[in-house]
Protein backbone atom coordinates (compact mmCIF):
# COMPACT_ATOMS: atom_id res chain seq x y z
CA UNK A 1 0.00 0.00 0.00
CA UNK A 2 1.71 3.25 -1.07
CA UNK A 3 1.77 5.99 1.52
CA UNK A 4 2.32 9.62 0.65
CA UNK A 5 3.90 12.20 2.91
CA UNK A 6 4.15 15.93 2.86
CA UNK A 7 7.50 17.68 2.81
CA UNK A 8 8.41 19.32 6.10
CA UNK A 9 6.18 17.15 8.21
CA UNK A 10 7.37 14.97 11.00
CA UNK A 11 7.12 11.28 10.34
CA UNK A 12 8.18 8.17 12.17
CA UNK A 13 11.04 6.39 10.41
CA UNK A 14 10.02 3.33 12.37
CA UNK A 15 6.61 3.33 10.75
CA UNK A 16 8.30 3.55 7.36
CA UNK A 17 10.40 0.50 8.25
CA UNK A 18 7.25 -1.38 9.23
CA UNK A 19 5.36 -0.43 6.09
CA UNK A 20 8.31 -1.11 3.81
CA UNK A 21 9.16 -4.50 5.30
CA UNK A 22 5.54 -5.61 5.10
CA UNK A 23 5.51 -4.50 1.45
CA UNK A 24 8.83 -6.20 0.67
CA UNK A 25 7.72 -9.39 2.39
CA UNK A 26 5.07 -9.75 -0.28
CA UNK A 27 7.45 -9.67 -3.21
CA UNK A 28 10.34 -11.46 -1.48
CA UNK A 29 9.20 -14.71 0.06
CA UNK A 30 12.70 -15.24 1.48
CA UNK A 31 12.68 -12.02 3.51
CA UNK A 32 12.92 -12.63 7.25
CA UNK A 33 12.73 -10.08 10.04
CA UNK A 34 14.52 -10.70 13.32
CA UNK A 35 14.72 -8.60 16.45
CA UNK A 36 16.15 -8.79 19.95
CA UNK A 37 12.99 -7.63 21.71
CA UNK A 38 12.47 -4.35 19.81
CA UNK A 39 9.41 -5.31 17.91
CA UNK A 40 6.87 -2.48 17.98
CA UNK A 41 8.04 -1.26 14.58
CA UNK A 42 7.69 -4.67 13.08
CA UNK A 43 4.14 -5.53 14.05
CA UNK A 44 2.87 -5.15 10.50
CA UNK A 45 5.40 -7.65 9.19
CA UNK A 46 4.96 -9.96 12.16
CA UNK A 47 1.19 -10.12 11.72
CA UNK A 48 1.41 -10.62 7.98
CA UNK A 49 4.26 -13.13 7.96
CA UNK A 50 4.49 -14.67 11.43
CA UNK A 51 6.42 -17.65 10.07
CA UNK A 52 9.21 -15.34 8.84
CA UNK A 53 9.40 -13.20 11.97
CA UNK A 54 11.63 -14.05 14.89
CA UNK A 55 11.93 -12.23 18.19
CA UNK A 56 14.77 -13.94 20.06
CA UNK A 57 14.36 -11.88 23.21
CA UNK A 58 17.39 -10.16 24.68
CA UNK A 59 20.07 -11.94 22.72
CA UNK A 60 21.76 -9.72 20.15
CA UNK A 61 24.60 -12.11 19.42
CA UNK A 62 22.32 -15.05 18.68
CA UNK A 63 20.01 -12.76 16.72
CA UNK A 64 22.78 -11.85 14.28
CA UNK A 65 24.14 -15.41 14.20
CA UNK A 66 20.70 -16.83 13.44
CA UNK A 67 20.25 -14.22 10.71
CA UNK A 68 23.55 -15.36 9.18
CA UNK A 69 22.38 -18.98 9.33
CA UNK A 70 19.20 -18.01 7.50
CA UNK A 71 21.21 -16.12 4.91
CA UNK A 72 23.51 -19.11 4.34
CA UNK A 73 20.34 -20.98 3.40
CA UNK A 74 19.31 -18.45 0.76
CA UNK A 75 17.21 -16.04 2.81
CA UNK A 76 17.41 -12.26 3.13
CA UNK A 77 17.31 -11.42 6.84
CA UNK A 78 16.73 -7.99 8.34
CA UNK A 79 17.84 -7.55 11.94
CA UNK A 80 16.13 -4.61 13.59
CA UNK A 81 16.97 -3.28 17.02
CA UNK A 82 18.76 -0.65 19.03
CA UNK A 83 22.08 0.13 17.41
CA UNK A 84 24.24 0.64 20.50
CA UNK A 85 23.73 -3.04 21.29
CA UNK A 86 23.66 -4.47 17.78
CA UNK A 87 26.81 -2.60 16.76
CA UNK A 88 28.81 -3.47 19.86
CA UNK A 89 27.50 -6.54 21.66
CA UNK A 90 27.00 -8.33 18.35
CA UNK A 91 29.98 -6.71 16.61
CA UNK A 92 31.91 -9.92 16.28
CA UNK A 93 28.89 -11.78 14.95
CA UNK A 94 28.39 -9.00 12.38
CA UNK A 95 32.05 -9.16 11.41
CA UNK A 96 32.60 -12.92 11.48
CA UNK A 97 29.21 -14.46 10.72
CA UNK A 98 27.91 -11.84 8.29
CA UNK A 99 30.73 -9.81 6.72
CA UNK A 100 33.35 -12.55 6.38
CA UNK A 101 31.11 -14.76 4.19
CA UNK A 102 29.55 -11.58 2.69
CA UNK A 103 25.95 -12.54 3.44
CA UNK A 104 22.96 -10.31 2.58
CA UNK A 105 22.01 -9.46 6.16
CA UNK A 106 20.59 -6.00 6.82
CA UNK A 107 21.22 -4.41 10.20
CA UNK A 108 18.78 -1.58 10.79
CA UNK A 109 18.07 0.28 13.96
CA UNK A 110 17.52 3.28 16.09
CA UNK A 111 19.43 5.39 18.60
CA UNK A 112 22.26 6.52 16.38
CA UNK A 113 23.93 9.46 18.13
CA UNK A 114 23.00 11.33 21.30
CA UNK A 115 19.30 10.68 20.98
CA UNK A 116 16.57 9.29 23.16
CA UNK A 117 17.89 10.68 26.44
CA UNK A 118 18.90 7.21 27.54
CA UNK A 119 22.34 8.08 28.79
CA UNK A 120 25.62 6.77 27.47
CA UNK A 121 24.70 3.09 27.62
CA UNK A 122 22.00 3.86 25.07
CA UNK A 123 23.81 6.15 22.65
CA UNK A 124 25.42 4.66 19.54
CA UNK A 125 28.30 7.09 19.03
CA UNK A 126 31.08 4.74 17.88
CA UNK A 127 28.93 2.59 15.60
CA UNK A 128 29.84 4.16 12.26
CA UNK A 129 33.57 3.88 13.00
CA UNK A 130 33.09 0.23 13.87
CA UNK A 131 30.88 -0.59 10.89
CA UNK A 132 33.07 1.30 8.39
CA UNK A 133 36.01 -0.82 9.56
CA UNK A 134 34.31 -4.03 8.44
CA UNK A 135 35.22 -5.47 5.05
CA UNK A 136 32.18 -6.04 2.79
CA UNK A 137 29.89 -3.83 4.91
CA UNK A 138 27.92 -1.01 3.30
CA UNK A 139 27.26 1.72 5.87
CA UNK A 140 24.40 4.22 5.75
CA UNK A 141 22.90 6.81 8.08
CA UNK A 142 19.50 8.08 7.10
CA UNK A 143 17.79 11.27 8.23
CA UNK A 144 14.78 11.62 5.98
CA UNK A 145 12.26 8.99 7.14
CA UNK A 146 11.06 8.30 3.60
CA UNK A 147 14.60 7.48 2.54
CA UNK A 148 14.61 4.53 4.93
CA UNK A 149 12.08 2.80 2.72
CA UNK A 150 14.03 3.61 -0.41
CA UNK A 151 17.32 2.38 1.05
CA UNK A 152 15.69 -0.84 2.23
CA UNK A 153 14.16 -1.43 -1.19
CA UNK A 154 17.48 -0.85 -2.96
CA UNK A 155 19.32 -3.06 -0.51
CA UNK A 156 17.21 -6.07 -1.47
CA UNK A 157 19.32 -6.66 -4.55
CA UNK A 158 22.67 -6.21 -2.78
CA UNK A 159 24.67 -9.41 -2.42
CA UNK A 160 26.35 -8.39 0.85
CA UNK A 161 25.46 -6.79 4.18
CA UNK A 162 24.26 -3.27 4.90
CA UNK A 163 24.03 -1.21 8.07
CA UNK A 164 21.23 1.36 8.24
CA UNK A 165 21.44 3.92 11.04
CA UNK A 166 18.51 6.00 12.19
CA UNK A 167 18.18 8.48 15.02
CA UNK A 168 15.35 7.82 17.48
CA UNK A 169 13.12 7.12 14.54
CA UNK A 170 9.90 8.11 16.24
CA UNK A 171 9.46 11.61 14.91
CA UNK A 172 11.80 12.65 12.12
CA UNK A 173 11.75 15.64 9.82
CA UNK A 174 10.80 14.90 6.22
CA UNK A 175 13.69 16.58 4.39
CA UNK A 176 12.92 15.96 0.78
CA UNK A 177 9.82 16.14 -1.32
CA UNK A 178 8.96 12.92 -3.09
CA UNK A 179 11.15 12.48 -6.18
CA UNK A 180 13.20 15.59 -5.38
CA UNK A 181 16.42 13.60 -5.27
CA UNK A 182 17.68 10.49 -6.93
CA UNK A 183 18.47 8.47 -3.84
CA UNK A 184 21.11 5.89 -4.61
CA UNK A 185 23.17 3.92 -2.09
CA UNK A 186 26.77 5.05 -2.56
CA UNK A 187 25.91 8.52 -3.86
CA UNK A 188 25.65 11.63 -1.74
CA UNK A 189 22.72 14.01 -2.05
CA UNK A 190 23.19 17.74 -2.59
CA UNK A 191 20.41 18.76 -0.24
CA UNK A 192 21.06 22.46 -0.84
CA UNK A 193 23.38 23.97 -3.38
CA UNK A 194 25.94 26.66 -2.59
CA UNK A 195 29.38 27.93 -3.55
CA UNK A 196 31.13 29.38 -0.46
CA UNK A 197 31.54 26.17 1.58
CA UNK A 198 30.15 22.66 1.90
CA UNK A 199 28.70 21.16 5.04
CA UNK A 200 28.87 17.38 4.82
CA UNK A 201 26.54 15.60 7.18
CA UNK A 202 24.32 12.56 7.59
CA UNK A 203 21.29 11.35 9.47
CA UNK A 204 19.55 13.52 11.96
CA UNK A 205 21.93 16.51 11.58
CA UNK A 206 21.04 17.10 7.92
CA UNK A 207 18.10 19.19 9.10
CA UNK A 208 20.41 21.19 11.36
CA UNK A 209 22.89 21.77 8.51
CA UNK A 210 20.03 23.02 6.32
CA UNK A 211 19.00 25.43 9.10
CA UNK A 212 22.61 26.65 9.39
CA UNK A 213 22.79 27.23 5.63
CA UNK A 214 19.53 29.16 5.80
CA UNK A 215 20.88 31.34 8.58
CA UNK A 216 24.07 32.02 6.63
CA UNK A 217 22.08 32.83 3.52
CA UNK A 218 20.62 35.76 5.44
CA UNK A 219 24.22 37.12 5.52
CA UNK A 220 24.60 36.57 1.82
CA UNK A 221 26.62 33.36 2.23
CA UNK A 222 25.98 30.53 -0.17
CA UNK A 223 26.49 27.25 1.66
CA UNK A 224 26.10 23.82 0.14
CA UNK A 225 24.75 20.97 2.26
CA UNK A 226 25.59 17.41 1.28
CA UNK A 227 23.63 14.56 2.83
CA UNK A 228 26.34 11.89 2.73
CA UNK A 229 23.95 9.18 3.81
CA UNK A 230 26.27 6.45 2.54
CA UNK A 231 29.50 6.52 4.51
CA UNK A 232 30.84 3.40 2.89
CA UNK A 233 31.42 3.21 -0.01
CA UNK A 234 31.75 6.98 0.09
CA UNK A 235 31.00 9.22 -2.87
CA UNK A 236 34.56 10.30 -3.62
CA UNK A 237 33.65 12.07 -6.84
CA UNK A 238 31.18 14.30 -5.03
CA UNK A 239 33.78 15.20 -2.39
CA UNK A 240 36.26 16.22 -5.11
CA UNK A 241 33.55 18.15 -6.91
CA UNK A 242 32.59 20.02 -3.74
CA UNK A 243 36.25 20.94 -3.14
CA UNK A 244 36.36 22.45 -6.61
CA UNK A 245 33.01 24.17 -6.51
CA UNK A 246 32.93 25.48 -2.92
CA UNK A 247 36.40 26.96 -2.52
CA UNK A 248 37.92 23.92 -0.84
CA UNK A 249 36.08 24.79 2.35
CA UNK A 250 34.60 21.87 4.27
CA UNK A 251 32.66 21.51 7.47
CA UNK A 252 31.73 18.00 8.54
CA UNK A 253 28.86 17.74 11.00
CA UNK A 254 27.74 14.48 12.55
CA UNK A 255 26.01 13.00 15.55
CA UNK A 256 28.89 10.58 16.13
CA UNK A 257 32.37 10.81 17.59
CA UNK A 258 34.17 13.56 15.72
CA UNK A 259 36.95 11.11 14.88
CA UNK A 260 36.14 7.79 13.24
CA UNK A 261 32.93 8.73 11.43
CA UNK A 262 32.15 10.76 8.32
CA UNK A 263 34.81 13.41 9.03
CA UNK A 264 37.46 10.71 9.07
CA UNK A 265 36.06 9.09 5.93
CA UNK A 266 36.22 12.44 4.12
CA UNK A 267 39.69 13.24 5.48
CA UNK A 268 40.88 9.89 4.08
CA UNK A 269 39.54 10.74 0.63
CA UNK A 270 41.08 14.21 0.77
CA UNK A 271 44.48 12.80 1.75
CA UNK A 272 44.40 9.83 -0.62
CA UNK A 273 43.34 11.87 -3.65
CA UNK A 274 45.56 14.85 -2.89
CA UNK A 275 42.61 17.23 -2.76
CA UNK A 276 43.65 20.73 -1.65
CA UNK A 277 41.39 22.32 0.90
CA UNK A 278 41.28 25.84 2.28
CA UNK A 279 39.51 24.94 5.47
CA UNK A 280 38.33 21.80 7.27
CA UNK A 281 36.34 21.72 10.50
CA UNK A 282 34.84 18.66 12.11
CA UNK A 283 31.83 19.00 14.37
CA UNK A 284 30.82 15.96 16.37
CA UNK A 285 30.95 14.36 19.76
CA UNK A 286 34.23 14.91 21.58
CA UNK A 287 35.78 12.14 23.68
CA UNK A 288 33.13 12.29 26.36
CA UNK A 289 30.38 10.04 27.64
CA UNK A 290 27.52 12.46 27.33
CA UNK A 291 24.91 12.76 30.03
CA UNK A 292 21.19 13.25 29.86
CA UNK A 293 19.32 15.89 27.95
CA UNK A 294 17.45 16.10 24.68
CA UNK A 295 19.41 15.84 21.47
CA UNK A 296 19.45 19.56 20.75
CA UNK A 297 20.69 20.42 24.25
CA UNK A 298 23.38 17.77 24.07
CA UNK A 299 24.60 18.99 20.69
CA UNK A 300 24.84 22.53 22.03
CA UNK A 301 26.63 21.37 25.16
CA UNK A 302 29.16 19.30 23.25
CA UNK A 303 29.90 21.89 20.59
CA UNK A 304 28.11 20.70 17.47
CA UNK A 305 24.71 22.34 17.72
CA UNK A 306 23.22 24.86 15.31
CA UNK A 307 25.18 27.86 16.65
CA UNK A 308 28.45 25.94 16.49
CA UNK A 309 27.69 24.83 12.94
CA UNK A 310 27.05 28.41 11.83
CA UNK A 311 30.21 29.62 13.57
CA UNK A 312 32.41 26.87 12.10
CA UNK A 313 31.06 27.53 8.62
CA UNK A 314 31.82 31.23 9.00
CA UNK A 315 35.36 30.36 10.04
CA UNK A 316 36.05 28.16 7.01
CA UNK A 317 34.54 30.75 4.67
CA UNK A 318 36.87 33.36 6.20
CA UNK A 319 39.95 31.25 5.39
CA UNK A 320 42.08 32.60 2.56
CA UNK A 321 41.19 30.92 -0.70
CA UNK A 322 43.86 29.26 -2.84
CA UNK A 323 43.18 27.43 -6.05
CA UNK A 324 42.02 23.90 -5.27
CA UNK A 325 42.56 22.18 -8.61
CA UNK A 326 44.16 18.81 -8.20
Amino acid at each position, binding site marked *: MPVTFTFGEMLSARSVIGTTLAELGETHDNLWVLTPDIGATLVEFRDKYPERFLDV*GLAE*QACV*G*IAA*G*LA*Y*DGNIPVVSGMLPFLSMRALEQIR*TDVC*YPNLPVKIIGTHGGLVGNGGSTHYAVEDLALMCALTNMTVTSVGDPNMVGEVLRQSMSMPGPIYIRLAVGKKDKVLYAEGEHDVRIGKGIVARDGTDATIFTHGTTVAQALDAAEELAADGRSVRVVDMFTLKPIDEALIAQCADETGGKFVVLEDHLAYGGLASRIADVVADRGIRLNGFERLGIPQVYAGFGDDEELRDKHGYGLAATVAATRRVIAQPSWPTSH
Partner: protein
Amino acid sequence: MAELEERAYELRAKLLHLCGTYEGAVHIGGDLSAADIFTALFHYGLDVDPGDISNPRRDRFLLSKGHAAVCMYIAMSMRGFFSYEGIVETYGKLDSAYGMHPCKVQLPGVEASTGSLGHGLPLAVGMALSARHRGETHRVVCLLGDGETGEGSVWEAAMAARSNELGNLVAFVDRNRQLMTSFAEERVAFEPYPDKWRAFGWNVVEADGHDMASLVAAIDGLPAAQSDRPTVVICETVKGKGVDFMEHNLAWHAGSLGAADLERALAALESTRKKETV
Protein backbone atom coordinates in the same frame (compact mmCIF):
# COMPACT_ATOMS: atom_id res chain seq x y z
CA MET B 1 30.89 -51.14 13.41
CA ALA B 2 34.39 -52.58 13.01
CA GLU B 3 34.66 -50.74 9.72
CA LEU B 4 33.79 -47.42 11.34
CA GLU B 5 36.32 -48.08 14.08
CA GLU B 6 39.01 -48.79 11.49
CA ARG B 7 38.15 -45.58 9.69
CA ALA B 8 38.52 -43.65 12.90
CA TYR B 9 42.04 -45.06 13.31
CA GLU B 10 42.83 -44.24 9.71
CA LEU B 11 41.58 -40.71 10.32
CA ARG B 12 43.84 -40.41 13.38
CA ALA B 13 46.85 -41.72 11.45
CA LYS B 14 46.21 -39.23 8.67
CA LEU B 15 45.93 -36.44 11.22
CA LEU B 16 49.26 -37.43 12.73
CA HIS B 17 50.91 -37.51 9.31
CA LEU B 18 49.72 -34.00 8.60
CA CYS B 19 50.87 -32.90 12.05
CA GLY B 20 54.27 -34.45 11.26
CA THR B 21 54.73 -32.73 7.92
CA TYR B 22 53.25 -29.31 8.60
CA GLU B 23 55.57 -27.06 10.56
CA GLY B 24 52.92 -24.83 12.11
CA ALA B 25 50.55 -25.67 14.92
CA VAL B 26 47.82 -28.27 14.43
CA HIS B 27 45.11 -28.55 17.09
CA ILE B 28 45.90 -32.19 17.43
CA GLY B 29 44.50 -32.69 20.94
CA GLY B 30 40.97 -31.56 20.08
CA ASP B 31 41.20 -33.24 16.65
CA LEU B 32 41.92 -36.59 18.25
CA SER B 33 39.16 -36.19 20.83
CA ALA B 34 36.65 -35.55 18.05
CA ALA B 35 37.93 -38.13 15.54
CA ASP B 36 35.38 -40.80 16.46
CA ILE B 37 32.52 -38.27 16.36
CA PHE B 38 33.60 -37.02 12.92
CA THR B 39 33.82 -40.61 11.70
CA ALA B 40 30.39 -41.51 13.07
CA LEU B 41 28.88 -38.43 11.46
CA PHE B 42 30.57 -38.35 8.05
CA HIS B 43 30.58 -42.12 7.54
CA TYR B 44 27.27 -43.02 9.13
CA GLY B 45 25.03 -40.30 10.52
CA LEU B 46 24.98 -37.48 8.00
CA ASP B 47 22.97 -37.66 4.82
CA VAL B 48 25.44 -35.85 2.58
CA ASP B 49 26.69 -36.49 -0.94
CA PRO B 50 30.16 -35.32 -1.98
CA GLY B 51 28.99 -35.35 -5.57
CA ASP B 52 26.09 -32.99 -4.88
CA ILE B 53 27.21 -30.55 -2.22
CA SER B 54 24.40 -28.05 -2.86
CA ASN B 55 21.49 -30.46 -2.66
CA PRO B 56 18.89 -28.61 -0.57
CA ARG B 57 17.88 -31.85 1.15
CA ARG B 58 21.37 -32.63 2.47
CA ASP B 59 22.01 -32.63 6.19
CA ARG B 60 23.98 -29.56 7.22
CA PHE B 61 27.07 -29.94 9.36
CA LEU B 62 28.52 -26.96 11.19
CA LEU B 63 31.84 -27.09 12.95
CA SER B 64 31.48 -24.72 15.86
CA LYS B 65 34.83 -25.80 17.33
CA GLY B 66 36.47 -24.45 14.20
CA HIS B 67 39.98 -25.25 15.39
CA ALA B 68 39.23 -28.91 14.62
CA ALA B 69 38.95 -27.98 10.94
CA VAL B 70 41.71 -30.28 9.79
CA CYS B 71 39.98 -33.28 11.36
CA MET B 72 36.83 -32.28 9.47
CA TYR B 73 38.73 -31.82 6.18
CA ILE B 74 40.28 -35.27 6.49
CA ALA B 75 37.03 -36.94 7.58
CA MET B 76 35.36 -35.31 4.56
CA SER B 77 38.21 -36.38 2.28
CA MET B 78 37.72 -39.97 3.44
CA ARG B 79 34.07 -39.62 2.49
CA GLY B 80 35.09 -38.37 -0.96
CA PHE B 81 34.65 -34.61 -0.66
CA PHE B 82 38.29 -33.64 -1.15
CA SER B 83 41.58 -35.36 -1.82
CA TYR B 84 43.64 -36.10 1.27
CA GLU B 85 46.84 -35.42 -0.69
CA GLY B 86 45.52 -31.99 -1.58
CA ILE B 87 45.01 -31.23 2.09
CA VAL B 88 48.43 -32.44 3.24
CA GLU B 89 50.30 -30.82 0.38
CA THR B 90 48.77 -27.37 0.71
CA TYR B 91 47.61 -27.08 4.34
CA GLY B 92 48.25 -23.61 5.72
CA LYS B 93 50.08 -22.47 2.57
CA LEU B 94 49.36 -19.37 0.55
CA ASP B 95 46.11 -19.70 -1.43
CA SER B 96 45.27 -23.11 0.03
CA ALA B 97 41.62 -23.89 0.68
CA TYR B 98 42.70 -25.64 3.87
CA GLY B 99 43.87 -23.88 6.99
CA MET B 100 43.45 -23.67 10.72
CA HIS B 101 39.78 -22.65 10.67
CA PRO B 102 37.22 -23.47 7.97
CA CYS B 103 36.32 -20.86 5.38
CA LYS B 104 33.34 -21.46 3.13
CA VAL B 105 34.51 -18.80 0.69
CA GLN B 106 37.67 -20.80 0.02
CA LEU B 107 36.20 -24.26 0.45
CA PRO B 108 32.57 -24.49 -0.73
CA GLY B 109 32.16 -28.03 0.60
CA VAL B 110 31.97 -26.75 4.16
CA GLU B 111 28.71 -25.16 5.28
CA ALA B 112 29.97 -22.06 7.10
CA SER B 113 33.02 -20.05 8.01
CA THR B 114 33.73 -20.64 11.67
CA GLY B 115 36.55 -20.49 14.15
CA SER B 116 35.63 -17.87 16.68
CA LEU B 117 34.06 -19.94 19.44
CA GLY B 118 30.37 -19.82 20.29
CA HIS B 119 29.24 -18.94 16.77
CA GLY B 120 28.23 -22.31 15.36
CA LEU B 121 25.05 -22.94 17.29
CA PRO B 122 23.33 -19.61 16.38
CA LEU B 123 24.19 -20.26 12.71
CA ALA B 124 22.75 -23.76 13.06
CA VAL B 125 19.55 -22.35 14.57
CA GLY B 126 19.17 -20.09 11.53
CA MET B 127 19.67 -22.98 9.15
CA ALA B 128 17.26 -25.19 11.10
CA LEU B 129 14.62 -22.45 11.09
CA SER B 130 15.04 -22.05 7.36
CA ALA B 131 14.65 -25.79 6.83
CA ARG B 132 11.48 -25.80 8.90
CA HIS B 133 10.08 -22.91 6.95
CA ARG B 134 10.70 -24.67 3.66
CA GLY B 135 9.11 -27.86 4.95
CA GLU B 136 12.39 -29.74 4.53
CA THR B 137 13.22 -32.60 6.86
CA HIS B 138 17.00 -32.71 6.81
CA ARG B 139 18.91 -32.22 10.05
CA VAL B 140 21.27 -29.46 11.02
CA VAL B 141 24.11 -30.90 13.08
CA CYS B 142 26.54 -28.73 14.99
CA LEU B 143 29.71 -29.95 16.71
CA LEU B 144 30.78 -27.93 19.72
CA GLY B 145 33.68 -28.21 22.09
CA ASP B 146 32.71 -28.26 25.75
CA GLY B 147 35.07 -25.37 26.50
CA GLU B 148 33.34 -23.12 24.01
CA THR B 149 30.05 -23.59 25.80
CA GLY B 150 31.46 -21.03 28.21
CA GLU B 151 30.46 -18.48 25.57
CA GLY B 152 27.11 -16.81 26.28
CA SER B 153 26.05 -16.91 22.65
CA VAL B 154 25.80 -20.71 22.92
CA TRP B 155 23.10 -20.41 25.56
CA GLU B 156 21.32 -17.63 23.70
CA ALA B 157 21.11 -20.03 20.78
CA ALA B 158 20.11 -22.93 23.02
CA MET B 159 17.15 -20.87 24.21
CA ALA B 160 16.21 -19.84 20.69
CA ALA B 161 16.35 -23.46 19.50
CA ARG B 162 14.03 -24.66 22.25
CA SER B 163 11.71 -21.67 21.93
CA ASN B 164 11.28 -22.39 18.25
CA GLU B 165 10.88 -26.13 18.77
CA LEU B 166 13.70 -27.06 16.44
CA GLY B 167 13.72 -30.85 16.64
CA ASN B 168 15.71 -30.84 13.39
CA LEU B 169 18.70 -29.38 15.24
CA VAL B 170 21.27 -31.65 16.84
CA ALA B 171 24.30 -30.53 18.79
CA PHE B 172 27.20 -32.87 19.50
CA VAL B 173 29.45 -31.76 22.33
CA ASP B 174 33.03 -33.02 22.40
CA ARG B 175 33.27 -33.14 26.20
CA ASN B 176 37.04 -33.58 26.50
CA ARG B 177 37.17 -31.55 29.68
CA GLN B 178 40.20 -29.53 28.66
CA LEU B 179 40.51 -25.90 27.75
CA MET B 180 43.66 -24.59 26.08
CA THR B 181 45.55 -23.80 29.26
CA SER B 182 43.80 -25.79 31.97
CA PHE B 183 41.62 -28.73 32.73
CA ALA B 184 38.10 -27.43 32.39
CA GLU B 185 36.68 -28.09 35.82
CA GLU B 186 39.68 -26.42 37.45
CA ARG B 187 38.62 -23.10 35.96
CA VAL B 188 34.94 -23.34 35.13
CA ALA B 189 32.28 -25.35 36.92
CA PHE B 190 30.66 -26.98 33.89
CA GLU B 191 29.14 -29.80 35.93
CA PRO B 192 26.39 -30.82 36.25
CA TYR B 193 26.83 -30.40 32.52
CA PRO B 194 23.95 -32.48 31.07
CA ASP B 195 21.58 -30.82 33.54
CA LYS B 196 22.47 -27.43 32.12
CA TRP B 197 21.23 -28.50 28.70
CA ARG B 198 18.18 -30.20 30.24
CA ALA B 199 17.36 -26.97 32.04
CA PHE B 200 17.32 -25.24 28.65
CA GLY B 201 14.68 -27.71 27.51
CA TRP B 202 16.86 -29.86 25.29
CA ASN B 203 16.62 -33.58 24.75
CA VAL B 204 19.90 -34.78 26.29
CA VAL B 205 21.72 -37.92 25.20
CA GLU B 206 24.95 -39.00 26.88
CA ALA B 207 27.41 -41.03 24.86
CA ASP B 208 30.92 -42.41 25.05
CA GLY B 209 32.64 -40.36 22.39
CA HIS B 210 35.26 -43.06 21.81
CA ASP B 211 32.87 -46.00 21.57
CA MET B 212 31.55 -46.28 18.04
CA ALA B 213 28.58 -48.38 19.18
CA SER B 214 27.61 -45.66 21.63
CA LEU B 215 27.84 -42.94 18.97
CA VAL B 216 25.89 -44.99 16.43
CA ALA B 217 23.21 -45.70 19.04
CA ALA B 218 22.94 -41.98 19.78
CA ILE B 219 22.53 -41.23 16.08
CA ASP B 220 20.01 -44.03 15.59
CA GLY B 221 18.03 -42.82 18.58
CA LEU B 222 17.67 -39.23 17.40
CA PRO B 223 14.05 -38.08 17.39
CA ALA B 224 12.46 -37.35 14.04
CA ALA B 225 13.51 -34.06 12.47
CA GLN B 226 9.86 -33.00 12.66
CA SER B 227 9.86 -33.32 16.46
CA ASP B 228 9.79 -30.27 18.68
CA ARG B 229 12.88 -30.53 20.86
CA PRO B 230 16.48 -30.02 19.84
CA THR B 231 18.85 -32.78 20.90
CA VAL B 232 22.31 -32.54 22.37
CA VAL B 233 24.57 -35.57 22.33
CA ILE B 234 27.17 -35.06 25.02
CA CYS B 235 30.13 -37.19 24.08
CA GLU B 236 32.60 -38.01 26.84
CA THR B 237 36.03 -37.86 25.21
CA VAL B 238 39.73 -37.60 25.95
CA LYS B 239 41.82 -34.85 24.46
CA GLY B 240 44.66 -36.44 22.48
CA LYS B 241 42.81 -39.79 22.42
CA GLY B 242 44.78 -42.68 20.95
CA VAL B 243 48.28 -41.30 21.45
CA ASP B 244 49.34 -42.01 25.02
CA PHE B 245 51.73 -39.09 25.43
CA MET B 246 49.13 -36.66 24.16
CA GLU B 247 46.20 -37.88 26.26
CA HIS B 248 45.18 -35.60 29.13
CA ASN B 249 48.24 -33.50 28.34
CA LEU B 250 47.86 -29.72 28.25
CA ALA B 251 50.98 -29.45 26.08
CA TRP B 252 49.11 -31.04 23.17
CA HIS B 253 46.24 -28.63 22.69
CA ALA B 254 48.09 -27.66 19.56
CA GLY B 255 51.53 -28.37 18.19
CA SER B 256 53.50 -30.06 15.47
CA LEU B 257 55.34 -33.34 15.42
CA GLY B 258 58.88 -33.74 14.12
CA ALA B 259 59.84 -36.88 12.23
CA ALA B 260 60.93 -38.72 15.38
CA ASP B 261 57.79 -37.76 17.32
CA LEU B 262 55.63 -38.72 14.37
CA GLU B 263 57.06 -42.26 14.48
CA ARG B 264 56.49 -42.34 18.22
CA ALA B 265 52.92 -41.06 17.86
CA LEU B 266 52.08 -43.55 15.12
CA ALA B 267 53.51 -46.38 17.21
CA ALA B 268 51.43 -45.24 20.19
CA LEU B 269 48.33 -45.08 18.01
CA GLU B 270 48.99 -48.58 16.68
CA SER B 271 49.40 -49.85 20.19
CA THR B 272 46.06 -48.30 21.21
CA ARG B 273 44.42 -49.77 18.13
CA LYS B 274 45.65 -53.28 18.97
CA LYS B 275 44.59 -52.93 22.58
CA GLU B 276 41.12 -51.60 21.78
CA THR B 277 40.18 -53.74 18.81
CA VAL B 278 41.06 -57.08 20.37
